[in-house]
């Protein structure tokens, strides 16, 4: 059953449409991520669920009940804010106990639950610390503790990791997953960081211009993007225009960058149709050559080689003038993945690894 159901939600600020007729079901207990560039409306969706904004039209059902007009303080939803928004005039304990005290829970019970929440975020013993004496990472954890101590139905997280440094961010990602599994609460997470979205979520919702572009598992989103926006925003892709010259059975022959190549035909494209071919850099095969490229390979020249430790990224300029990225992995069979700048190469990919989209 959907714990949150957004039905035809629209929201404008200053006559600027921010959310456009959005529908979304959030499943109980899942880790859902709203992913998109800044200004795509993802934070507004979160604030609508929290009750910090009211929508212009549409309904919001929480746990099956219409709560479209219910004020934030009466919703069984808590938020971890991007800026943490910890109360500067209270210490760690009072910050975390804030929600419980408002619910008039007995003092001893409050103490126990705050202690438990601090253990969950690994900040045992910091109860009396003033907020300004905490590091950024610790403040983050207090913000999470302050929300989960109330045992909400849904925990909303608004880009909570964006202010942390890389190492801490990676640690917090693991901790968040762990916390999600332990608590069993529905997490709705907002981010513009695709890596965060892919590593954390059960389901990812990609948003753009106030509309949902694609909803699916991280694997779906990455491997079978439904449109160019998703393909481009999630991960890197090389995008080519191509033309279908022949269809046969489940395959089709395309004309791409001056060569012909067989690819899979998953969407019943017909002869003469223009399509987009999307290829991830890690799916490209690169071969050295002194002569002509074999059939099905695109000739080009290495323009830039970027060493990244576990991989080598190549910027290759095809003879057609098109620049592409290819990622080569170090492995046992092929130790020699270092290329010289201006070295001639042939580029291809294994049939079926491409994503084919209709021309938009």
């Amino acid at each position: 059953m959907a714990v949150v159901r957004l039905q035809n939600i629209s929201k404008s600020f200053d006559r600027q449409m921010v959310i456009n007729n959005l529908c979304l079901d959030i499943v109980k207990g899942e880790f859902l991520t709203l992913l998109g560039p800044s200004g795509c409306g993802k934070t507004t969706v979160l604030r609508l669920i929290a009750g910090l904004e009211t929508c212009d039209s549409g309904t919001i059902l929480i746990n099956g009940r219409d709560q479209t007009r219910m004020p934030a303080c009466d919703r069984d939803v808590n938020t971890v804010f991007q800026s943490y928004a910890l109360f500067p005039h209270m210490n760690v304990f009072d910050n975390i106990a804030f929600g419980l005290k408002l619910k008039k829970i007995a003092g001893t019970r409050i103490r126990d639950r705050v202690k438990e929440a601090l253990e969950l975020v690994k900040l045992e013993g910091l109860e009396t610390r003033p907020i300004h004496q905490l590091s950024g990472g610790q403040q983050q954890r207090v913000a999470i503790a302050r929300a989960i101590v109330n045992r909400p139905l849904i925990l909303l997280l608004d880009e909570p990791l964006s202010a942390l440094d890389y190492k801490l961010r990676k640690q917090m990602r693991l901790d968040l997953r762990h916390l999600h599994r332990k608590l069993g609460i529905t997490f709705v997470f907002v981010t513009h960081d695709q890596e965060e979205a892919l590593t954390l979520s059960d389901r990812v919702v990609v948003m753009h211009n106030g509309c949902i572009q694609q909803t699916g598992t991280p694997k779906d989103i990455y491997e079978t993007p439904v449109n160019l926006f998703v393909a481009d925003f999630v991960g890197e892709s090389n995008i080519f225009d191509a033309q279908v010259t022949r269809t046969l059975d489940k395959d089709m022959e395309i004309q791409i960058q001056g060569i012909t190549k067989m690819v899979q035909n998953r969407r019943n494209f017909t002869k003469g149709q223009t399509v987009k071919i999307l290829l991830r850099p890690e799916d490209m095969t690169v071969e050295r050559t002194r002569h002509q490229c074999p059939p099905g390979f695109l000739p080009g020249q290495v323009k830039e080689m970027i060493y990244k430790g576990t991989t080598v990224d190549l910027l290759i300029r095809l003879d057609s003038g098109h620049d592409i990225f290819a990622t080569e992995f170090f492995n046992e069979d092929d130790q020699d993945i270092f290329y010289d700048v201006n070295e001639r190469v042939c580029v291809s990919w294994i049939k079926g690894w491409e994503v084919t989209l209709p021309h938009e």
Partner: protein
Amino acid sequence: MNERQGFKFFAVFINMAWFALFVLVPGLMVVGISFLTRDMGSFFAWPPTLVHYKELVDPVYAKVLGNSLVYSLNTTLLCLGIGYPFAWFLSRAPAYRRPLLLMMVIIPFWTSSLIRTYALVILLKANGIINAVLMGSGIVSEPVSMLYTDVAVYVGLVYSLLPFMILPLYAVLEKMDLRLVEAARDLGANGLQVFVHVVLPLSLPGIMAGCIMVFLPAMGLFYIPDLLGGAKTMLVGNFIKNQFLTTSNWPFGSAASVFLLLLMVLMLGIYFLLSNRFNRNQTL
């Protein structure tokens, strides 16, 4: 000494000299005179004495002081009650409208407050504007006596001192992080609870500053009780003025001034102590 240092020295020196000449010296003179004997001819004379300070302890004067404290306290509370909501709405008004609203608070300062007090007299007197409107519209049949009442004194004091309450409150409220308000709502606080647990404690420095800035001048504003209260209510300010201008008892007036000064220093001291502690707990 290079040119810049020379300028710095000059600028500081001018300021110091100004304050020394027109604040420190007269102040010390007041302190000095308070220890001298009253003299009808030359206002004060030798030998030194403590008699004026002993006189101050007299219940009659204690009552004057108590009166003043009550008036100042009430004025401060009224200013807080009126100024706080105003400062809140001012700080939440759209950014483009705030300068205009702030100007409307500040513009009255451009006129002498004595003149503004006379303007209040014209409004409040028996055949004044307010009574004319009330009688003209048939709400009352006889003029309501407003001038020379306590109400008039409070109207005058609050009117004159309200901006001193609004401005420091506006300063803290405008800086306040609204995300804290949202966080409190998110955690289940209703409007009143948000105000009591978050907004009020965070605006405490502004409240303290505003109260000090209203309370202290209210003690000394002698012409408002004089003009609007009909000199019926004796406040510390009036009392000191009378000692100098009416009864020509300069040493006694000086002693009362010194006493008032010490009282204010004491309150400012408490304020700084409190605000220091508050800041240590709050900011980085």
